[in-house]
């Protein structure tokens, strides 16, 4: 077993979290603008709405990935000697991708949604040019290459330090006679699994991006639309899930500092992460349940694996956290509160997602607001809450809130309360709207739908206020750190 023995590469990670914090607030504001427009409280042109929608979707998925990667890199740099320059290349390629994507959207007018469903990028109906679509896709390629480089470095070092993929995944413990004391840390198992499936996802994404780019340049080159859709959702599903699974590393590493009990790699933990690895890759057909051209077995697999994916989350990660909370005193501060909220929100959000993964339910819920309902729960109250918790932990000393003997200040309580109420209300309004058959991704809403969007807008404001307080707290912490 290799324990933490290196100083973490904190500098570039802290810079990353500054960028992520500011971008999250900007993108949340984009979301608020969309909900206000749907509420008929403001009026923007549909073309601009769909541009904002594309920026919001691509930006949020990318930023979730960025924060997950920052968590992964920070904690793995404590266990293995990661080459720091690789992270700089990753961050540089990410920022280049952001510039290309924003340029494509707000200069080129691209509004093909973050899912770039083939052949929409090439068939805009006159709204954007092929050049704008190509620029958007190249932005994705840049970000994807950055992630690939980052993951290859993490994977290479973990494989070297822990005796191959098998060792880093704790397979001797999971499926053999390995001992708990010889197993790698829990965060290493999570990092290895996330690295494997995100590399697979990014490779599929790269393939369909290149095919789409060739289609833009040579329209005669056509891709089977169903094949392209499969590849897009393998990439998209794995990428956003990898963001959450990377962010949960912060829970495994930080929560033990508040409880005094290490988050060990037990046999059930090791087995569950092996299943996570399998499920994250195999579950994507649940995005294609209304494509009857898909083989029936694939759709059934999507439904079953969608359900099974809840077991490692609820019965292992969430259950273990509940045991920690019940078994010993935990010191509550902003970091620990947000990390616990992150696991709770992820768990709660998995329920409407699993239910929507049933074909019979999906028939009347797919692409209604039920869908943004469930993914906003496990992003706002899950992944992003974990990211904000990680930010708070990074500056815990400067905020004079060391893990032992700390209490949350009034402003911290206000921030987390505002964020929680806002996030819960905002996402429940999506679920209610989905149950009322209100479609997702519509710029203009019928008059009978505007009140739901109006209520959601109020909750969105609370989410933005809470997030702004978290980011200000982080920036003040960094300033204090600098002074020290």
């Amino acid at each position, binding site marked *: 077993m290799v324990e933490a023995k290196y100083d973490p590469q904190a500098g570039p990670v802290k810079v990353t979290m500054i960028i992520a914090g500011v971008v999250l607030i900007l993108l949340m504001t984009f979301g608020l603008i969309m909900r206000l427009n749907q509420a008929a409280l403001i009026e923007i042109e549909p*073309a601009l709405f769909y541009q904002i929608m594309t920026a919001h979707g691509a930006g949020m998925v990318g930023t979730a990935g960025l924060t997950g990667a920052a968590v992964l890199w920070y904690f793995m740099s404590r266990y293995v000697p990661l080459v720091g320059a690789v992270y700089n290349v990753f961050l540089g390629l990410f920022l280049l991708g952001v510039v290309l994507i924003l340029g494509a959207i707000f200069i080129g007018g691209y509004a093909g949604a973050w899912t770039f469903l083939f052949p929409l990028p090439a068939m805009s109906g006159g709204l954007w040019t092929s050049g704008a679509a190509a620029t958007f896709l190249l932005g994705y390629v840049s970000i994807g290459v950055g992630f690939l480089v980052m993951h290859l470095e993490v994977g290479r070092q973990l494989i070297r330090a822990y005796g191959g993929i098998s060792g880093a995944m704790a397979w001797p413990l999971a499926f053999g006679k390995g001992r708990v004391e010889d197993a790698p840390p829990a965060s290493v198992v999570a990092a290895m699994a996330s690295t494997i499936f995100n590399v697979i996802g990014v490779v599929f994404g790269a393939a369909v991006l290149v095919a789409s780019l060739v289609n833009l340049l040579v329209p005669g080159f056509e891709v089977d639309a169903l094949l392209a859709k499969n590849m897009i959702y393998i990439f998209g599903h794995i990428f956003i899930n990898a963001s959450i699974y990377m962010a949960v590393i912060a829970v495994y590493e930080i929560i033990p500092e508040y409880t005094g009990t290490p988050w060990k790699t037990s046999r059930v933990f090791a087995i569950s992460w092996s299943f996570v690895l399998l499920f994250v890759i195999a579950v994507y057909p649940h995005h294609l349940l209304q494509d009857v051209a898909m083989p029936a077995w694939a759709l059934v697999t999507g439904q079953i694996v969608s359900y099974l994916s809840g*077991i490692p989350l609820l019965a292992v990660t969430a259950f273990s956290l509940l045991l920690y909370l019940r078994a010993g005193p935990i010191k509550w501060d902003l970091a620990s509160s947000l990390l616990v909220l992150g*696991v709770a929100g992820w768990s709660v959000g998995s329920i409407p997602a699993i239910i929507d993964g049933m074909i019979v339910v999906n028939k009347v819920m797919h692409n209604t607001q039920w869908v943004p309902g469930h993914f906003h729960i496990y992003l706002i109250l899950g992944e992003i809450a974990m990211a904000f918790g990680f930010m708070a932990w990074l500056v815990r000393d400067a905020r004079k809130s060391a893990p032992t003997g700390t209490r949350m200040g009034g402003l911290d309580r206000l921030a987390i309360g505002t964020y929680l109420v806002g996030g819960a209300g905002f996402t429940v309004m999506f679920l209610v709207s989905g149950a009322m058959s209100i479609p997702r991704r519509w710029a203009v809403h019928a008059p009978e739908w505007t009140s739901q969007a109006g209520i959601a807008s109020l909750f969105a404001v609370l989410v933005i206020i809470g997030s702004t307080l978290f980011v200000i707290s982080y920036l003040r912490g960094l300033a204090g750190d600098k002074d020290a």
Partner: protein
Amino acid sequence: MQMIVLAVSLVLMALTALCFAAAIRSGGSARPADRSEERRRGLIWAMLVVGLVVTSVSLREWPHSVSAAAADQTVNVTGGQWFWEIDKTELPRDRPIVFNVHTADVTHGFGVVNESGRLLFQMQAMPGYVNRVQYVFDKPGNYRVICLEYCGVAHHDMITEFTVAAN
């Protein structure tokens, strides 16, 4: 269906949230959970059994089945940027109708909504494929067709109607 799904989801979500709230409120004063691994195994088995039952019940009748007997009641639907074309706009009641769903350009989502605004069913309209979906309308009236897959700037305007006759 939708309201049942909403109610079940909210109850399960609330129960999950309550588990966290109770653990937090315990303040770490709960007795050491010496049977915790047993309980964890119980939870895993319970989830597996519930999953088996739900999967069996929900897939006992294939949700996408199209019967050969309904072949004489076929409607051809074509989606395009940004319109729907339907070759029959008056359909019979209480008879299985098969919709052959095409697209003229990009992917669209063929969604049918009743007069109460409730989504009855949907099917993707995908380039290069004809996707078939069957439905029995048990109430006469006007039904709206909407687009449920984002397809460009006038996606929200892709709306048309058809009628189901009283007899």
